[in-house]
C-alpha cells in the first residue's frame, strides 16, 4: 500500500470527489499557492471556476460556501488557520447550523469547512495554534470530524463532502506531515464510527487527532506493564458512544486526551457520556487531559508546558494502574 502524507491523502480525497461530482468546488485564501498546500495542484486539473483563491475574508468565504451549498453545490471551504474561523463564527453558528432546521428539512446544506488546528512545537503563538473544535461541539446542527491519520483523513473527508449537513473538518498541523498507508482504491469512512486503534484490556485511552499518535506510542512503550485500548472517536458529532462505553465497561478505567483547553472541553463531555452508562463499572475515577487553561504561548518551553504531551499521557496512565 502506498504511503501518503496527510496533505497528500486529503488532496486525494478532494481530487476523487471533484472528478466524480461537478458540484464539488474548493475555495479559500491562497489555496493554490501558499499555506499547508492541501489544495495545491487542483487549479491545474479543475480550473479557476472550481478552485478559487479568495480575499482575506473568512466570513465571506464561509458565508458564500453556505449560500452555494443551499443551491445544491458541495463547497469545500478552507480556513487557513482555525483561529481565523472565528471571523466567520456567526455564519457557522447562526446560519449554517440553522438552515436545515428552519426549513424543517426542505433545505440541504452539503458544506464542508476544512481547517488546521493544534500545535506541538509549531510556534504559532496564541492566534495560530489554538485547538477550537470543542466550541463547535456545543452547537447542534454541525457535524464535527477530527481525523488522526492519513487513512482516516481521506476516508472521512470524502464522507464529509457527500454529507447533506454542514461539516467542520479539523486537521491537526502534525497530520499534514505524518505519513501513513492509504490504499489506491476508493473507500469512505462513515461518521459516528470510532476506530479501535489498538486493542487492550486494562485501561481505555480515548484520544483525538494528533493525540492518537501519542496514545499509541505510550501503549507500545508500556506494553509489558499494562494493556491499553486506544480508541479514536474520529467524529465528535456524531459520537460513537457504543464503542466507547463498551470499552470502558470492559476495562473499568478511562483517560480522555484531547488538545482542547480542559475547561469546557470535549474531554469532559466524553467522560459525562461514559459515566451515564458505565459509572458502576469504574474501578478508578475517570481522568482527562487537555491543554492548560492559558493562551498558547510562543516560546517552546512554555508551549510544552501547556499542551498535552506523550509524557503527560504516560504519567496519567501510570498513576491510574
Amino acid at each position, binding site marked *: 500500500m502506498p504511503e501518503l502524507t496527510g496533505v497528500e491523502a486529503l488532496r486525494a480525497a478532494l481530487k476523487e470527489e471533484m472528478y466524480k461530482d461537478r458540484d464539488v468546488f474548493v475555495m479559500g485564501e491562497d489555496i493554490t499557492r501558499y499555506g499547508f498546500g492541501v489544495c495545491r495542484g487542483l487549479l491545474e486539473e479543475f480550473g479557476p471556476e472550481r478552485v478559487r483563491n479568495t480575499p482575506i475574508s473568512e466570513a*465571506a468565504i464561509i*458565508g458564500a460556501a*453556505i*449560500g*452555494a451549498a443551499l*443551491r445544491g453545490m458541495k463547497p469545500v471551504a478552507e480556513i487557513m488557520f482555525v483561529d481565523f474561523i472565528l471571523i466567520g463564527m456567526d455564519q457557522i453558528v447562526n*446560519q449554517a447550523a440553522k438552515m436545515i432546521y428552519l*426549513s424543517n*428539512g*426542505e433545505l440541504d446544506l452539503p458544506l464542508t469547512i476544512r481547517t488546521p488546528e493544534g500545535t506541538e512545537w509549531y510556534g504559532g503563538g496564541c492566534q495560530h495554534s489554538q485547538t477550537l473544535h470543542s466550541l463547535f461541539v456545543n452547537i447542534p446542527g454541525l457535524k464535527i470530524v477530527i481525523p488522526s491519520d492519513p487513512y482516516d483523513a481521506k476516508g472521512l473527508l470524502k464522507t464529509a463532502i457527500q454529507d447533506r449537513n454542514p461539516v467542520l473538518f479539523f486537521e491537526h498541523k502534525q497530520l499534514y506531515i505524518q505519513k501513513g498507508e492509504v490504499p489506491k482504491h476508493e473507500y469512505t469512512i462513515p461518521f459516528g464510527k470510532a476506530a479501535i486503534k489498538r486493542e487492550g484490556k486494562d485501561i481505555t485511552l480515548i484520544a483525538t487527532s494528533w493525540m492518537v499518535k501519542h496514545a499509541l506510542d505510550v501503549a507500545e512503550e508500556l506494553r509489558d506493564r499494562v494493556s491499553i485500548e486506544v480508541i479514536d472517536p474520529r467524529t465528535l458529532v456524531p459520537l460513537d458512544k457504543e464503542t466507547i462505553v463498551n470499552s470502558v465497561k470492559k476495562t473499568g478505567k478511562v483517560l480522555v486526551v484531547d488538545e482542547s483547553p480542559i475547561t469546557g472541553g470535549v474531554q469532559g463531555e466524553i467522560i459525562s457520556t461514559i459515566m451515564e452508562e458505565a459509572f458502576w463499572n469504574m474501578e478508578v475515577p475517570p481522568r482527562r487531559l487537555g491543554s492548560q487553561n492559558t493562551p498558547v504561548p510562543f516560546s517552546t518551553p512554555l508551549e510544552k508546558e501547556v499542551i498535552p504531551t506523550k509524557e503527560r499521557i504516560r504519567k496519567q496512565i501510570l498513576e491510574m494502574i
Partner: protein
Amino acid sequence: MNISREEKVEMFKDMVRIREFEDRAQQIYREGKLNGHLQTCQGQEAVAVGAIRAISKKDIVFSNHRGHGHYLARGTPAKKIMAEFYGKVTGTNCGKSGGMYLVDVKRGMMVASGIVGGNICLAVGSALASQIRKDGVVTLSFFGDGATNIGLFHEGLNMAALWNLPVVFICENNQYAEATKREEHQKIKKISDRAISYGMPGVTIDGTDVIKVYKTVKEAVERARRYEGPTLIECVVYRLAGHSAGDLGAYRPKGEEEKWRETYDPVRIFQTQLLSEGVLSQIEVERIIKEAREEVEEAVQFAEESEEPSVEMAYQYVYQEKN
C-alpha cells in the same frame, strides 16, 4: 420600459395586501396573542413589490427579519406566514421560526436572517453557485441601512464585485437601525456611495416609488444575468412602524413619523397616482382594500384554528439523516 395597466394594478394590490397584513399582525401582536419578535415593514411595501416583480420565477431571494413583504410579494400564502407568527405547524417553517426567519423554498425564498446583515454573504454564495453552473439565475439580497455597517456587508460586496457575481444588493434604508437614527450610525449621506469602493455601480432611489424600484431593479437584474456583475441599490424609505411590533417609537422626534407618513407613504402615493392616471377608480381601490382585508382575516382565522406542532418536531431536522 413600459408597464401595463394590469401590471400596475397587480403591484398596487400587492402593496395593499402587505400593508393590511402588517397592520393586522402588529395589532394582534399588541393584543398579546403572539410570542417573540415581530418586525413589520409598513412604509417599505414599494421596495418589496417593485423588486420582487423585477425578477423571474427561477431567481433566488435572501430576505431579512423585516421581510414579510418580500414573501407576500413572491406569492407565499398570507395564511402560512400568519400561522408561522402564531407558531403553528401550518406555518412557513412549521412553527420553528416565528416572524424573523421565514422560508419558502418552492418559491426561491431562502431562510431570512434575523441577524442584521447575516445572510448578505449567503446571497453572494448563491450567486457564486449560479456563476459556476452558468444557470442564468440571479440572486437578490435584501437588508437595511443598519446592515451596511457590519463586516459581512463589506466582505460580501467586495467578493461579489471581484468575481462579477449575479447578485443585486437592495438596501432598504428606512432611516433607523433599530432605534438609532441613520445620522447617528453612519457619516455618509448616501449608502450607495459605498458601491464605488467595491467597484460596482451604486444608485440611490426613492424607495416609495414602486415603478422606480421596479425599473431600477430590473435593469440591475438584467445586468447581473449577463454576468456583468452586482449592483447596490439604496431604496430610501421610512419605517412607518416601530422596530418591532411592540415598539411605539418613543425615541423618534415628535411629528417625524407623521411628516413622513403624509409625504412618503408608498401605498398612498401609488393609489393617488393610479387614481389620477385613471388606472383605477375609487370604487376599485376600495374593492382592492376590502379583498386584502378579507385575505388577512382568512389568514388570521387559519392561523388561530391551526394545530400546534407536535413536540417531537423539536427534534426533527436538526440534521438531514439520510444521504
